[in-house]
């Protein structure tokens, strides 16, 4: 099995440790991983803003970079969702279709493809609030959202609950959107920041020390909000926790 690693632009630039954790975790799980050096972005920021025309260049590059792999794996639910559902600014060649179909977010790749449930090296003795980004939750169906009854499967929780010492906070609105929303975060700044403040406050009130997520973009926004509010919350990507980060 040949796996191509896609590290989204904002992770590459701002959170390289998340990329490192993703790569190391996949290697620990016995996967042969390669990182194509000429990668940038999946096209989502432009396409979600209505500008599919401006996304075409990035999407073309994405298909070229990952066409040779059995799977493309990325530590970002919203990028995986874009590739699978919205990578339509480029011609839908056999290559493009194959890349789209075989692109997975890290947790679902581990959960659904590798079928791994044990992380004996992982220990995280902290109370964490789990944040499932909306594209990951409702687009990739990582869990059953509350408006559809909740309960049922929850892939990130299934993996995290195997981490030694971990405890979970129960926020009042577990799957309310945090307000990042890509360019929404700057073009609708007043609502975005209010949603972010409400989100991190809900986690804080539930006793969370850390917020853990499959989406660093949500966390980047929430971290910015929590720091401005002085809440003392910490943020960590699920790849880091599963890879055995100690805090």
């Amino acid at each position, binding site marked *: 099995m040949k796996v191509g690693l896609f*590290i989204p*632009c904002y992770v*590459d*630039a*701002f959170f*390289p440790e998340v*990329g*490192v954790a993703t*790569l190391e975790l996949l290697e620990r799980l016995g996967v042969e991983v390669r*990182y194509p*050096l*000429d990668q*940038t972005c999946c*096209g989502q*920021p*432009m396409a*979600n*803003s*209505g*500008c*599919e*025309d*401006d996304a*075409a*260049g*990035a999407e*073309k*590059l994405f298909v070229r970079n990952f066409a040779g792999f059995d799977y493309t794996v990325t530590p970002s639910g919203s990028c995986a969702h874009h590739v699978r559902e919205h990578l339509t600014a480029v011609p839908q060649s056999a290559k493009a279709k194959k890349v789209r179909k075989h692109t997975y977010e890290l947790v679902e790749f581990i959960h659904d493809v590798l079928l791994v449930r044990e992380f004996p090296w992982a220990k995280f003795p902290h109370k964490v609030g789990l944040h499932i980004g*909306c*594209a990951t939750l*409702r*687009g990739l169906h990582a869990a059953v*959202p*509350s*408006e559809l*009854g909740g309960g049922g499967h929850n892939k990130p929780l299934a993996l995290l609950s195997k981490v030694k010492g971990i405890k979970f906070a129960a926020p009042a609105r577990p*799957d*309310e*959107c945090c*307000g*990042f*929303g890509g*360019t*929404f*975060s*700057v*073009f*609708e*700044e*007043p*609502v*975005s*920041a*209010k*949603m972010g403040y409400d989100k991190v406050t809900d986690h804080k009130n539930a006793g969370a020390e850390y917020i853990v997520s499959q989406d660093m973009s949500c966390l980047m926004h929430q*971290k*910015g*909000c929590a*720091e*401005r509010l002085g809440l003392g919350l910490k943020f960590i990507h699920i790849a880091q926790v599963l890879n055995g980060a100690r805090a």
Partner: protein
Amino acid sequence: MKRVDHAEASSKFIAAKEHIEFHDMRLWDLRLKRDREANALPEWEQLRSLASAVKEHTLSHLADYLEQFESRATANGMRVHWARDGAEHNQIVFDLLSSHGARTLVKSKSMLTDECAMGPFLEQRGVEVIETDLGERIQQLDKEPPSHIVVPAVHKLRGDVAQVFSRTIGTDPKNSDVAYLAESQRRHTRPYYLSAGAGMTGANFAVAETGTFVVCTNEGNADLSANLPKLHIASIGIEKMIPRIEDLGVFVRMLSRSALGSPITQITSHFRGPREGAEMHVILVDNGRSERLGMADFWYSLKCIRCGACMNTCPVYRRSGGLSYGATYSGPIGVIIDPAFDLRKYSSLPFASTLNGSCTNVCPVKINIHEQIYKWRQIINERNMLPMAKKQAMRVAGKVLASPKIYRAALQAANAGIEYLPRFMLYNPLNAWGRQREVPKGRKSSFRDWYLKNRGKK
């Protein structure tokens, strides 16, 4: 028409702290009640599929069902009128009122008459229009449009209502007791029912096979409006049609559960024909619906039964208020309906969304709301209606991210302390990110640098 600026309007809404906290909490509470009701019915998802299928079937045979409705309703003694647009609708209403010598119209809640701007049209012609739904009446007295399609004054606190009522119907400005305010409005409105020359309702459903229509309410005001005056006018959008009376059960079971989290509305009235000595007129209104029915990506929005569940679940709506959308329809459903009426004016609305998708999941008729929002965004860009700053930011981002070389140069520039990277990565023409949030710190080296150093030999 001036372009609506949702972000600007929302910042004003957010500034009123007590109001936004109440607004968010009140509507979230409706969402939770809706969840409890939906979860209590094991067949809920089956009902959603059924409701969606009935609506899709009806919309794809709409002309036939409309004609069937017309002939059956006429046989029942109703008079059926057809209105191509809001102007025709308003003229029909005015002509009916004039020919009956009616100077006062009591009416129950109707989004359609707001859509047609009927109130101002009639008032300019000397007709007194009295809203009888409590929330609608509060909004009418305050000269504001409704902010929500089910709970029109939900953005007001009871203190605000006390102020409006003291100014307009003479209540004690210091008394904001809810029962006192509701009772005062009721006493003030009652005489109008008796003196009005005509009453008006909307309809939640029009049944083709029986030529009857159904109005679901909680206050009893629609029945008073319809049954006391000698003339009853019902304004009905053509998409309200359902084929058979037995289909009604599917929708009645879902409407109030979705809207307010109650099993059913207090009153479900079936209007079957005029009572003796009175007249019943139905106006079937198109006003852009036929055109929307022809839009491959957007005709689905005509399935809407106006329950407001998408608004209650929407985190953006709850934190910006209905009035910030500057349109008859607000919230997620407004975001996909309003652009069909006037794309330029409402071109900011599809961006008043995080595409989180909870609206789609609560919709009782399975409208793919968030997918339609995504599609409207593409159309707004194709028609060159994006704000200049946003389009330029996207063009630059697109160019940088299309080229690994330019992308890496941009990263290096950022590492050297030049603020180029945050500019293109955070789409930050107005530096909006940092106003209420800390900016993520730039890093000395990227993941790619790490990879080359640590895995490069492979």
